């Protein structure tokens, strides 16, 4: 994985000291909260409902065992003994004290970590396919490109006070595991007709109050031109994005009000100027230098063996293990969605336990996925039983990856200042309702995504079943959306109708799922059945008895 050289290390160290001075001025009252806010946000520090929340950057979701141990240490020393993985592959601590934050940053710097640009109206921490480097279907590892973007965007002098936040994702496979079309901009590594590798660049996706899918703004950007092309997009956005209304400030609004043709023209015009000036070409040597850090581990020469299918191990393998490009290896997902648990949470002992497992099985890296799970990208198939046993002991062997209880969920009103409704307790109730593994497996791939407000941190627009918490005169209601997808078949979910009460929503989901089980044709996922039949048959059953009530 990427290792800091002296320049990266110094940069992060100085950035920590810079932030220490900002905190000092805030504590002395030299900075108002209004002035401090954008500064702390650019360092991942939010002021939440009960306390500050610190969001730690995990660039493209990749972590080492050493970093895991440091996160465990921070969880114990500065927080309440646990952390939370977010839908952008980052880690959040919910209870740090402001005065401790510079020291936490100092600790993070010792393991090449930081909180730079995990929040604020700047280019956010870059995300990538969590199967990078292991997926059978990838053209190349997308992380060197993500790292290049990370460096270019770090403390960018021109683009640190944008109209709104800006999120970039990178993938290199046909299967989209990074929700490409829901990003402000995205880079898809592709091959052109001549077999040359380059970039298809997307713009204008986003969730929130007004969801949009991104569209292609650059069909094939050549390798040395990528940063110049992204800079062109950023400049068009910085100059033209709306600043009069927070809710219309994302690039999706600009991109969709200008339209594809005009947006393309503006970006290309800007890109031509940048290319002519010649200042942002990335030479092959620099790309190769970064790519070398992401060279795959030295794989042993192994062959694919039939994997165990019996018992708990067999189930875990069937649900949580994916094919690897290297014979004899496998990709294992560690679900952070135990039935009745908080999606994405992990405690300090589990962090340490996973780090030890990595060391013992020669696993140099682990990934955080946008689905709030962890991924061991390079496990020897023959080690799977032992890895499973170890995960079982850690309480991390829930065999539900991609199933209905593998729910994406924002922190909601239990933590978040913006939320209108609780989301974690509802997710827990749904998971309990569908806890029966046989039923889950029969239902198959079904992605439930849930947010406690329209900001959509829980990606509800992109859920096969999405749930949105709203507040109506002090009472929490839950709207149901069907038919969304964040994958390569991306779509925006459709709202079913009036919301459900907190005691009705789980039944409603249950009825919708049972309708699917009756209506599906062989091989159809929930999403496929919905797309074939539309909202009607699901809406007809979802409201149950309520259908005749006041709604």
């Amino acid at each position, binding site marked *: 994985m990427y290792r800091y*050289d002296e*320049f*990266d290390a*110094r*940069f992060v160290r*100085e*950035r920590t*000291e*810079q932030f220490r*001075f*900002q905190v000092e001025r805030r504590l002395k009252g*030299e900075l108002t909260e209004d*002035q401090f806010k*954008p*500064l702390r946000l650019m360092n991942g520090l939010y002021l939440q409902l009960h306390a500050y929340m610190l969001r730690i950057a995990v660039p493209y979701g990749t972590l080492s065992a050493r970093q895991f141990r440091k996160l465990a240490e921070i969880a114990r020393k500065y927080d309440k003994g646990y952390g939370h993985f977010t839908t952008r592959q980052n880690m959040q601590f919910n209870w740090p004290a402001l005065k401790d934050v510079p020291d936490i940053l100092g600790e993070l710097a010792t393991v090449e970590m930081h909180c730079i640009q995990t929040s604020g*109206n700047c280019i956010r921490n870059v995300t990538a396919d969590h199967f990078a480097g292991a997926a059978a279907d990838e053209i190349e590892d997308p992380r060197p490109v993500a790292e290049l973007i990370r*460096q*270019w*965007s*770090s*403390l*960018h*002098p*021109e*683009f*640190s*006070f*944008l*109209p709104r936040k800006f999120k970039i994702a990178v993938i290199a496979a046909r299967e989209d595991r990074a929700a490409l079309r829901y990003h402000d901009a995205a880079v898809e590594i592709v091959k052109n007709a001549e077999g040359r590798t380059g970039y298809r660049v997307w713009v204008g996706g986003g969730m929130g109050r007004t969801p949009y899918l991104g569209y292609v703004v650059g069909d094939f950007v050549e390798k040395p031109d990528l*940063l110049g092309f992204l800079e062109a997009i950023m*400049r068009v956005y*910085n*100059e033209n994005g709306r*600043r009069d209304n927070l809710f219309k400030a994302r690039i999706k609004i600009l991109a969709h009000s200008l339209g594809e043709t005009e947006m393309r023209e503006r970006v290309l015009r800007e890109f031509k*100027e940048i290319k002519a*000036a010649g*200042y*942002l070409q*990335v030479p092959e040597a*620099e790309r190769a*230098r970064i790519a070398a850090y992401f060279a795959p581990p030295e794989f042993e020469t192994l062959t694919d063996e039939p994997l165990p299918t019996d018992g708990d191990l067999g189930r875990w393998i069937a649900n949580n293990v994916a094919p690897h490009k290297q014979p004899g290896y496998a990709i294992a997902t560690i679900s952070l969605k135990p039935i009745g648990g908080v999606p994405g949470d992990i405690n300090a002992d589990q962090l340490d336990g996973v780090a030890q497992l990595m060391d013992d099985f020669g696993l140099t890296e682990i990934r955080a996925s946008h689905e709030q799970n962890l991924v061991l990208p390079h496990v020897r198939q023959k080690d799977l039983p032992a890895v499973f046993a170890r995960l079982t002991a850690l309480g991390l062997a829930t065999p539900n990856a991609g199933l209905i209880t593998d729910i994406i969920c924002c922190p909601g009103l239990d933590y978040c200042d913006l939320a209108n409704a609780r989301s974690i307790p509802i997710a827990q109730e749904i998971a309990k309702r569908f806890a029966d593994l046989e039923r889950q497996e029969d239902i198959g791939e079904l992605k439930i995504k849930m947010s406690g407000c329209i900001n959509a941190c829980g990606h509800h627009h992109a859920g096969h079943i999405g749930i949105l918490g709203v507040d109506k005169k002090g009472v929490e209601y839950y709207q149901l959306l069907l038919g969304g997808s964040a994958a390569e078949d991306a779509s925006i979910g459709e709202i079913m109708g009036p919301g459900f009460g907190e005691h009705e929503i789980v039944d409603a989901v249950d009825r919708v799922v049972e309708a699917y089980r009756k209506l599906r044709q062989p091989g159809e996922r929930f999403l496929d059945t919905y797309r074939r039949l539309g909202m009607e048959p699901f809406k007809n059953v979802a409201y149950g008895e309520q259908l005749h009530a006041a709604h």
Partner: protein
Amino acid sequence: MPLIRNGAVAEDTYVTVADDAALPDGAVIVSLKRFRAERSDLLARNHALGVVLTSDQSPETLGPDLDRLSVVVLEFPKFRDGRPFSWARLLRTRLKFTGEIRARGDFLYDQIAYLKRVGVDAFELPPAITPELFARALSEMTNVYQPSADGRETISALRG
């Protein structure tokens, strides 16, 4: 309010003139609106001239007149409005403006290093920022990752 020019406290030799005030002798700075209304008179004076651009005014609208200006003032209505960063960058890199680019208005200590990088070389310091703090702001980060208008070598170039 101290003026910092090229890193040092400097005397402000310009007078910023309101749109309805009479022009004094000597170097003046006027709004874009006044510049457009009185363009030929202003250019005919034998004094240095500056124009204020508000954050919604791109320097590209000045066209060839830019060469006749000695100062372009970029005004921050609110520190969160980041458009002046792009305007400065355009002035230096694309429009090759070699005169003074001056930051005015509501900018923060923490934006000074960014402003310098995109090509601003004069700062009308808000009351909270002393010249000592100004110097400190420029010393916080030794190296940079991306090229900008200041021509500094990037980390990638330093790695050689």
